[in-house]
Every structure is written in C-alpha cells, then in structure tokens.
C-alpha cells in the first residue's frame, strides 16, 4: 500500500514538474517578441547591424587626404605577428642633405594567414595601422587575399 502511494506520488510529481517546465515554454511561445537576440543577417546588414568600434577585423594603413601614411618601416609589426602574415619591404632613399633613410616600399598583408589577434596594432609605435571593424572579407580568388596596404605614390607623414 505504501509503495503504491509512493508510486502515485512520483507520477503526480512528474506531471507537476513537466507542467512547470512547459509553462515556461508556453510563455515564450505566446510572447514571441520578448527578448529576441537573433540577428536577421544578411537582411539587416545595411540597417540595424551593430559592429562594435573595437571589433578586430581587417588591418588597414590609413592615409590622409594628401596620400600620406605614418609607417616608418620599422618592421616591429612583422616581428610581432605570430603567423607571418605581414611582410614589409623597404628601400634605402637618399635625401637632399645626403642622409640615408629607410622608406616603406610595400606593406604586404596576407589576410588569409591573419588570426586577428591584434599583436601588430599593439606593437606599432607610430599607431600607423589600425583594425577596421569590417568582417565580410571573403574573395573569389585566393591571390586577392594578399594585399598591399600602402597606396601607390604615398609618402611618410612628417611629424609636426
């Protein structure tokens, strides 16, 4: 008799706990607009999408309006990169007063090898490179992933 009572109690408790759980599910079923975190990507890519300013995306070398950048070709970023995705090619240039100076020739960035760890940005003493918060980086051709970041004819920005 006692075991029967125990059995029935368990059955009742089972149904009760099932009901409390299902009540919550039913609540969310009838309140579908409450706390939606789903992003309607790609429909919202031009409207409501919110990519934080600090999002670690593609590395860029910003140029000002006079086509000047801040990179001094010190290669600290190249040394800081764990994957070897940065290659800096510099040339020796002679200025008017006869001093030899190292000048950036090509800032080559291999996007395919980048893990977006941000070590290069951290290592740069001039703050010449930044990470853009762009994330749609796929291309059709693998060779397009290797980019030259400095624009043709660009020069080093002189310090004020």
């Amino acid at each position, binding site marked *: 008799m006692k075991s029967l009572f125990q059995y029935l109690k368990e059955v009742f408790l089972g149904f009760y706990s099932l009901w*409390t759980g299902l009540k919550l599910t039913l609540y969310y079923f009838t309140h579908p607009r409450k706390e939606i*975190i789903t992003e309607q990507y790609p429909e919202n890519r031009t409207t409501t999408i919110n990519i934080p300013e*600090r999002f*670690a995306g593609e590395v860029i070398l910003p140029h000002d309006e006079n086509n000047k950048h801040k990179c001094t070709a010190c290669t600290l970023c190249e040394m800081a990169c*764990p994957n070897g995705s940065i290659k800096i090619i510099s040339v020796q240039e002679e200025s008017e007063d006869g001093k030899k100076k190292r000048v950036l020739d090509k800032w080559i960035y291999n996007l395919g090898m980048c893990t977006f760890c941000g070590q290069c940005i951290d290592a740069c003493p001039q703050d010449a490179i930044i990470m853009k918060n762009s994330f749609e980086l796929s291309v059709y051709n693998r060779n397009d992933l290797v980019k030259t970041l400095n624009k043709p004819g660009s020069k080093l920005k002189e310090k004020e």
Partner: protein
Amino acid sequence: MENNNNIPIDDLTEEFVVNIGPQHPSTHGVLRLQATLDGETIKDLLPVLGYIHRGIEKMTESLGYKQSIYLTSRMDYLSAHINNQACSLAIEKGMQIEVPERAKAIRIIMAELQRLTSHELWWGSCAMDLGAVTPFFLAFRDRERILDIFEGNTGNRLTMNYITPGGVMFDVLPNFASSIKELLVKVKEHLKEYEELITGNVIFQHRLKGVGILPRELAISMGCTGPVARASGISCDVRKYHPYDGYDKLDFKEIVIDGCDSWARYKVRMEEMKQSIHIIEQLIHNIPEGEFRAKVKGVIKLPVGEYYQRVETARGELGVYIVSDGGNKPYRMKFRAASFSNLGALKPITVGAKIGDLMASMATIDLVIPDIDR
C-alpha cells in the same frame, strides 16, 4: 529444430564494438569513444584522441612569449580569457612585474564572465544531450549578451587575446560597468527560469541521480579538478588555495557537494554560476582607477629558470609551466589541461553502466576536446 531455450543466456550474447564519434552530434567535438557493448551494457570504453591535435606546446617554442598567448585561447575555447590569464601570470612571474590594480579587477571580471558563459553553454548542451532542445536556445540568450560585451571591449567574441603580460590590451569602454550591471539583473532572472525548466524536472533528475558515480578516492587518483572533483567532495578550488590577481580579497564560497554522481556535478555548476555573479558584483561598483597596463618591453625575455602558474578555469585547474633558457622564446611550455585529466575518469564511471547513461556522464563531466588534444 534447435531449441534456444536450453542454452544459457550468456552464450547467446556477443560483444560488439561501437565507435561513438569522432563526428557525433552528442560528443561536442572530435572525440572518438570506442565502446565495447554487451547488449546495452558498456564492457569497455577507450577514448581515442588526436583528431584536433595542433601541437600548441611545440608551436610556442618557435613563437615569442607574447605571441604564444593567442594560442592559449584556442585550447579551451570556452575559457579563453582564463587561459590568457594563466599564461600571462606565468610570464609575469618570470619578469617580476607588478600588475596595476585596475588591470587585476578587469581580469577577474572578464574571467568570471567567461566562467558564466562556459557554464551557461554547458547547461544548454547538457540538457540537449539528455534530449531537451529548448534549454539550448534559452542558454544562448545570456551567453550572447555576455559575448556582446566581450566583442565591444576586447574586439573578439571567442578567442580574445585580451589579457597580456602586464595587464590588459586596452582599457574597458566607459559603459562597461553599467552594461554589466544591466546584464547581471537579467542573468539572475534567467537563472530562476533555468531552475524552473530543468532542475525541478523529475525526468531530468532521474537521468542524472545515481548515474556516473565518481567516488572521492577515484577522483583524486585520476587527477580530476574543478566542478567534477568538487562534486565528489574534494575541496580543490585554485582561487581559494593559491589565489592570484586578488581573488584572496574577494568574498565567495567554494561549492563542494558530496554527492559523487552526475546530479552533484550539475548542482555544483549551477551554484558556481551564482558565485561568479557574486564575485562580479563585488568588483563592478568600484573598479580602481589608474593604469590598465604596466610597461612591458616589446620583446619579452625571461631569466633562466622554471615558472609555474595555476589558475581555475571553468573546467578545473590549468597549469602553465615555462622553462626558459634566457632567450626570447620559451625553451618549453607545458600546459596541464583540466579536461584531459577529467576524461580519465570517464572510463571507470561508465564501465558496467548502460550506454544511455554514457551521454549523461559525458555531459556532466563537460569535456572540451581541443583542451584535451592541444
């Protein structure tokens, strides 16, 4: 015609080997379990590793100290911040630099948020392993909000590389404290829903109670740490016994339950989430002002010697052991990962049980496969 009724039942059955994984929906990753079955009873269980071995320990020998840290995010990817912290602390020990108070506070907040995300994901996947799909989506709500905070402050969602030797990469955003306060209110509300939906459910309790019993002695001899060991009545929280980054100044309880079964492991993690919230609440109201990063040279060189640092990740104890020969690259870097030791306990607790209970045991041990293989 032959009458099978006269033959003893033992002679009729035959052992059968089933490979669970490496690509199986309920194993969370590329772990292969070679289970020898007799009917539904597990006779033997052999975990086969190596499907996601990347040689992280060897890779660190060719990278510098700073560059090695980003690799540690990829070991236990659900405790990326805590792994970064462990590696940074070990390097700081060698360099003998003092971390600013502000950086310490940010580190602890980030680590506890990470523990929260990890346990929330575990809660969802644990219920999903046992056949309930709804919890998985509910757990991802809070996790998504925490990941948004990570994304805004550190730039990445999963593999942050935010904690570096000397402090943290960047200062937190001005709205960091207010956004976390807002978040914690929600998380606390949702924790109640979790209890309502799953913890009180009789079917769920029956699947876990008395299943996968890991006795105290076995847990010690297998080297289990973290929630798995604490559910077997072993007090082993590194945050309490070897405090780092100012955990000794905070008030929190170590959850130890003497249940030894899967249900105890479930309870430990649910209580730990509340403790994590409690820790964050103590810090968030007064994050110290000042520097967020001590001055560190571009290329780090450690003095000749051996350095060891242990931290408590969401899965247990992570140890980082660095041997330095004085150069700018580590001579050897060894990681003692929690999941590897916890996996060792899987065989003794499942042999002799039914195959249906294997999933329950695996779910509550909470394995992360890249942490096992490295």
